[in-house]
């Protein structure tokens, strides 16, 4: 009767595949962008800048009502990608995930997007400082029904102070993850990785709160009378969706350009697709809960926000949102094969990115267009503008690093993992 080892049920050395345990693949892929690829960055900056400039002109100037609303829509869409990336990197460290190591560097780079987003927030924050209520009607305290709490929370100084805190935290955290990830390559190894796991836990708590309040400050306060405790979670699901879609597209583009060709496999795309599918369902759950609870209790203080979105041609817009953000992608992405095929996954990634923009539009535009949906050139150009500038910056940062965190001790598992 010999001593027996404990059966932890851990997949120690067993990544669910028929491959040998711990055997590292020889990484022969190209791991750095070359000059030709960086050309896209320049193009993105150019297209983005021009589009944004045109949007300013068509939208009535930088503080014109149409531009401000279109810009906020595009801004929150772009921000969701960067915040989603930041959240995801934190999460991967927290749960000691192994499948995702190969794509983690891409997410770390996408998280750096919080830097341009901080700069791009200026057109939205300057009117706050100058008490210009073209976008944020709460700047006129008459609109707040003399609610003391709202006057305390919604005033320029507190608002800007909060924004400063959010951006300092986001930028700091994004820089931290990238820096530590690159330190792994210098031989930090297992110790460093363990410490990163411990750091990720408290930062996740702060991240949850900052993303929540960022969403509240930018989006929920557009209608200063309305409130919903689930709002932060609702925006968070958008962050997860846009991030995963962009991650898939980023990896596919890199592979098309000849990088990381064998490192990122069908299995990884399958997992990214699963998260996209799951969060389509999760978005539906959160969105439905919010709507149904407010509908059911029928309290005018809360229902007016939905009434604004169910009257005139906003009603078909809301129905289109439900159809395109839930019904179609849910049934479309259900099949296992669709998530494992790059062409179909690319289709759904683009679909989700578009539909998430439309969700932002649905959140913001009824504030301006009371009688119906009115998507115009300013909206599209602002969207292209933010997307271009964000893309340009991320690619620029990518030039300095390898495309895979080669120093992570768990890389082998990630390269060889197989799905259920």
């Amino acid at each position: 009767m010999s001593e027996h080892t404990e059966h932890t049920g851990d997949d120690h050395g067993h990544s669910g595949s028929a491959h040998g345990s711990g055997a590292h693949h020889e990484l022969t892929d190209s791991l750095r962008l070359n000059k030709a690829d960086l050309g896209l960055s320049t193009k993105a900056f150019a297209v983005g800048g021009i589009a944004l400039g045109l949007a300013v002109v068509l939208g009535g100037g930088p503080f014109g009502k149409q531009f401000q609303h279109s810009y906020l829509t595009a801004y929150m869409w772009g921000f969701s990608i960067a915040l989603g990336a930041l959240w995801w990197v934190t999460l991967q460290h927290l749960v000691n995930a192994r499948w995702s190591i190969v794509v983690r560097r891409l997410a770390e780079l996408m998280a750096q997007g919080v830097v341009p987003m901080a700069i791009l927030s200026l057109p939205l924050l300057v009117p706050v400082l100058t008490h210009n209520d073209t976008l944020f009607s709460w700047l006129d305290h008459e609109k707040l029904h003399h609610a003391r709490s709202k006057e305390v929370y919604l005033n320029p100084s507190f608002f800007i102070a909060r924004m400063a805190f959010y951006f300092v935290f986001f930028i700091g955290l994004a820089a931290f993850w990238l820096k530590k990830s690159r330190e792994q390559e210098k031989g930090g190894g297992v110790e460093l990785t363990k410490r990163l796991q411990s750091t990720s836990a408290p930062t996740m708590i702060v991240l949850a709160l900052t993303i929540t309040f960022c969403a509240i400050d930018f989006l929920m306060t557009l209608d200063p009378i309305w409130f919903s405790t689930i709002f932060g979670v609702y925006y968070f699901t958008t962050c997860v969706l846009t991030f995963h879609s962009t991650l898939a597209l980023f990896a596919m583009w890199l592979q098309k350009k000849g990088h990381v060709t064998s490192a990122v496999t069908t299995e990884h795309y399958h997992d990214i697709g699963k998260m996209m599918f799951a969060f389509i369902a999760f978005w539906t759950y959160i969105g439905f809960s919010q709507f149904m609870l407010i509908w059911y209790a029928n309290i005018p203080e809360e229902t007016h926000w939905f009434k604004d979105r169910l009257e005139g041609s906003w009603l078909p817009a809301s129905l289109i949102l439900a159809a395109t953000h839930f019904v179609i992608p849910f049934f479309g992405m259900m099949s296992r094969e669709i998530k494992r095929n790059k062409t179909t996954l690319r289709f759904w990634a683009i679909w989700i990115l578009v539909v998430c923009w439309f969700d932002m539009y649905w959140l913001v535009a009824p504030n301006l267009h009371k009688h119906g949906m009115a998507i115009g050139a300013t909206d599209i150009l602002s969207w292209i503008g933010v997307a271009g500038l964000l893309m340009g910056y991320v690619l620029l940062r990518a030039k300095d690093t390898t495309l895979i965190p080669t120093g992570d001790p768990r890389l082998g598992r990630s390269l060889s993992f197989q799905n259920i």
Partner: protein
Amino acid sequence: MDTRASSITNPYNGPLEGDNAFAQITHNVTRIMQAPRPPLAWYIAFAFALSLLGVFGLSLGFVVWEGIGAWGHVHPVAWGFPIVNFVFWVGIGHAGTLISAVLFLFRQNWRTAINRFAEAMTIFAVVCAAVFPGVHIGRPWLPYWMFPIPNQMQMWPQFRSPLEWDVFAVGTYATVSILFWYMGMIPDFATFRDRSTGTVRRFVYGLVAMGWRGSSRQWHRYERAYLLLAGLATPLVLSVHSVVSFDFATSQLPGWHTTIFPPYFVAGAIFGGFAMVVVLAVPAREFFGLKRIITIKHLELMAKVILATGMIVGYAYAMEMFVAWYSGAMYEQFAFLNRAFGNYAWAYWTMIFCNVVSPQVFWFKKMRTNVWVILIVGIIVNVGMWFERFVIICTSLTRDFLPANWGAFIPSPVDYATLAGSFGLFFTLFLLFCRYLPMVAMAEVKAFIPESHVHDH
């Protein structure tokens, strides 16, 4: 180790038979079923559980006889302990499904040591929960009116009511959990069948094993079904506690009507449920000799989940308080001030201590890996989650919009007896499960040990 003496009190202290890891796992689990009698600790626990079950039966009988005034129900607190207990028990059930289904989808293979056990806990918790809606209605001989059965009044239930959604949600949850649990046990019933000696045992286990022989072609479909059920159970578990939260959130009562209730309740359910899993796992692994399967690493991972879900619950508390303040709604603000500083402030601060403060010890590795700390924190969190429902339900009802309608809630002895008694039902069923059913998912554990690896050269 004096195996004879200790085998009187505990037949599972001996070494494991079997010349390979698979056989050892089989022996580790089947010897519980094969032993002529369970350990002394089981008898003591069972006696205690049975007496509490008796208390349950007596108090419920008394309530049916006397009317629900036997509880502390009084206007305006029309929902007292029974509904608190209902939400408490349904919540506990959720951890089992999370471990079975959600952790499976996330490929967390450490779940295999505890998933059977946790699923059993789910079923029994849902059974306890289901008793309360049936009994708390004024005429407890009419709960069948909640079901759409054709009747001579030619009436149908009101499907637009959250209370009716509860019927379907909890009913579906109980059914799907039983299906999932049963399906998971088929291969293990086959193992029990093949290892049983008595004819009756072999016949019964053989019957429920359905003739499973472990054919790989069958395993393939089985695994697909398992994956599909896990994929179905995940949104189901989210929906069930969300529907329970809708009981409150669809109302207009301050403190009840808030949009974050669905995910908040689900997180709270997982939080409380994991605490209960831990409370059960620590003694069970001790007394049934399962320490090699349910290891400290498993307990540590569960402690981390408790900490994480506790933080999510804390986030929800913070959002509620922030929006109550931000909204400027007088009733909402009062509701939260009342919770913290009113008549039931003691319940509120108990809840905060138990749910937010106590899991913080799990930041420290020493605490996460100490079996006693884990057990005690698990108990504390269970208490805290019960108090959370008490605070939400009872304190909000005692202070609603109109001061003329305010009241006090004083639980009656029958309330306490019913609450305690429900634990009797839970533990009785659970101890019977430990004795007669496969406590660990042997097939699943075996599938993830290093020996199960296929080595290609």
